[in-house]
């Protein structure tokens, strides 16, 4: 029996259209728009000004707080302005615009391809390099990596769990990374183990990626303490708490951190970025992005510089079909619909999904028939139907009592609902409200 998490879950069609495509390098864009807030937490403070010349790897923004991250230039050229740009969040946020000239890199960056397995740095030095390089969680949550590696006092990690699940339908960026850069990923895992002070790491991969499992298993023989765990396909296995439950059979309590059950979870993409940051001194300036969906002609995987407009990626994937109706940053379950093709790729962009118009429009919602399919689907063991009603009628106390803040916004409830009710729309809004109320009570 393959492992998987124990509560709820769904099986959306996988649609991994771009799975057989090798990662190709996307040309540097003519203008890069690099948002200063690409992570959870405070945006970075700009340290360049209009007219400055920058190289690839030049620091553009300095971390603006404890939970924040550095931002580096992904291109070389001239800073044309520091203004706001609509990013994947749908709102205008400060960003650095750079007109690209050539492709010059900072000298300190090692651009060779030779894998460097050995790492002799101390834990402190590793974490400093990760902080300096602006590495954040690349699974989509973009939580600054160094914060996760510095547990609160008195907490000790037992195990590092590497998230190679990629449970979102359509996306294949992590899959391509594991099959094409497996060596580097594992070297990164070893570094992360050292940084987190653990001697055991498990790479969790869903068994719809047998090539990645076999390849990494083979490579893992060369490392002490790294194990590859094939997992039964079920969404949302890539959720942090779900993955810990699948791998360790331990459930993180409501409101607690993964470290409370001895786990630190990092994405495979993050492991690769950590490897580059520590061994190659390379800041996080590019990432693998899947461009996919029925709305693009040639679904592909690209290595893309941060700040490249989505338009360039879609063009490289053969352009949109005539009936494209929705562009999504991320996967179909948790991704955000983008307002335009000018939105730049950021650290958290794992994919660009273009859906044809017919797949883009929701069916009209009917009244709830209390079939409880959402209850069965919810991986957090909540009652989405009840929570939606509570949120819709502003019954915040009821919502809080029924753990609305535990919702991980995976969308399984809305996906399942036979009455097409927008369950997650309301629950997400209610979760925000209730979290605000809780914060207000604390202060």
């Amino acid at each position: 029996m393959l492992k998987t998490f124990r509560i709820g879950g769904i099986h959306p069609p996988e649609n991994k259209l771009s799975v057989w495509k090798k990662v190709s390098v996307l040309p540097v864009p003519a203008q890069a728009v690099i948002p200063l807030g690409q992570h959870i937490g405070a945006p970075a403070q700009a340290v360049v000004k209009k007219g400055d010349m920058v190289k690839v790897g030049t620091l553009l923004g300095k971390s603006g707080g404890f939970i924040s991250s550095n931002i580096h230039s992904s291109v070389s050229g001239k800073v044309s302005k520091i203004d706001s740009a609509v990013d994947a969040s749908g709102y205008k946020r400060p960003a650095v615009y750079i007109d690209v000239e050539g492709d010059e890199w900072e000298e300190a960056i090692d651009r060779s391809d030779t894998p460097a397995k050995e790492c002799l740095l101390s834990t402190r030095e590793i974490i400093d390099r990760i902080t300096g390089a602006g590495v954040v969680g690349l699974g989509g949550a973009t939580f600054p990596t160094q914060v996760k590696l510095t547990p609160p006092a008195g907490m000790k990690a037992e195990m590092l769990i590497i998230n190679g699940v990629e449970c979102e339908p359509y996306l294949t960026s992590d899959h391509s990374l594991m099959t094409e850069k497996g060596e580097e990923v594992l070297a990164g895992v070893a570094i992360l183990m050292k940084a987190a002070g653990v001697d055991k790491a498990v790479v969790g991969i869903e068994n719809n990626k047998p090539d990645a499992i076999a390849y990494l298993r083979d490579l893992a023989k060369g490392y002490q303490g790294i194990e590859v765990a094939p997992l039964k396909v079920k969404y949302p296995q890539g959720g942090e708490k779900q993955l810990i439950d699948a791998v360790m059979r331990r459930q993180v309590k409501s409101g607690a951190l993964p470290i409370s059950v001895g786990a630190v979870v990092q994405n495979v993409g993050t492991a690769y970025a950590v490897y580059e940051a520590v061994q190659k001194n390379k800041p996080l300036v590019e990432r693998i992005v899947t461009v996919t969906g029925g709305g693009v002609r040639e679904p592909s995987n690209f290595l893309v510089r941060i700040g490249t407009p989505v338009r360039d990626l879609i063009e490289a994937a053969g352009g949109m079909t005539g009936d494209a109706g929705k562009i999504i940053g991320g996967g179909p379950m948790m991704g955000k619909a983008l307002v335009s093709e000018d939105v730049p790729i950021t650290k958290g962009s794992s994919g660009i999904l273009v859906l044809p118009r017919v797949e883009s429009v929701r069916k009209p919602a009917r009244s709830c028939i209390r079939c409880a399919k959402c209850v069965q689907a919810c991986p957090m063991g909540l009652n989405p139907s009840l929570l939606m009603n509570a949120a819709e009628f502003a019954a915040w106390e009821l919502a809080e009592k029924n753990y609305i803040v535990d919702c991980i916004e995976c969308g399984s409830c809305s996906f399942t609902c036979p009455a097409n009710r927008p369950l997650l729309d309301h629950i997400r809004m209610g979760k925000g409200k209730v979290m605000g109320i809780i914060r207000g009570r604390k202060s």
Partner: protein
Amino acid sequence: MILIAIITLGGIGVVSSGLLYVASKKFEVYENPLVAQVQEALPAANCGGCGYPGCSGFAGACVGAQSLDGLLCPVGGAAVMNRIAAILGKDAAGVEPKIAVVRCNGNCEARPRVNRYDGARNCAIAASLYGGETGCSYGCLGYGDCVTACTFAAIGINPATGLPEVAEDRCTSCGACVKACPKGIIELRKKGPKSRRIFVGCVNKDKGGVARKACSSACIGCSKCEKECKFDAITIADNLAYIDPQKCRLCRKCTASCPTGAIYELNFPPPRKEAVAAAGQVSEEKTN
């Protein structure tokens, strides 16, 4: 037979009444009789406009407070506050009648759509997702959270403009819509003499050019009105004009000076012909 029935039923009655008596004594909650009196005087709308959970909460607060300063039932206004003051033997604070105004006039023509929203029709949800269907990320979303919040049916979306409109005779200035609007478009303003008031019908803080591109009736922060105003009632901050209702003398000079027609005047006698041309069609709709 009848006797048994009478005895049984009578017995049950006696026992139950005894139980009820004991329970009512044992679980009795003492309440200051003044609270009930004050609550009697309140409009019983339970709208929460006073900031307390319902009328009984407000009544408790009035009885408990040293003075009535800062306590106001927006629905009942001065009349109710005076009555409460009389019951409690305290002085009532002065009350100025207010009303809700909608500070957005980006109707379908002025503010073309640039995308289509397909989520749950709820402003809070749409606002947490993105800037909205039009180029203006400050303007009204039009999904009617204010309408849902209003207990008095005093605000409704006009299907022609897609914007909320306030029914003046029903609005009690409880402020529920102000709290409900995620964009902070609705403001409680001084009702003004004969309900006449002037305000800027826009909350867009983008630079003039950007705002103008997104909406033809946007305030572009050009400060023409600021210069026109003789009473220093208009200030410009973040590319946006604001008219201080306390300082405004309702001279209406600013309305004519606005190049985008973003300043609105309500309940004035019909303007002279040249003013109609300047104010444009939108404000006319608003006045009606």
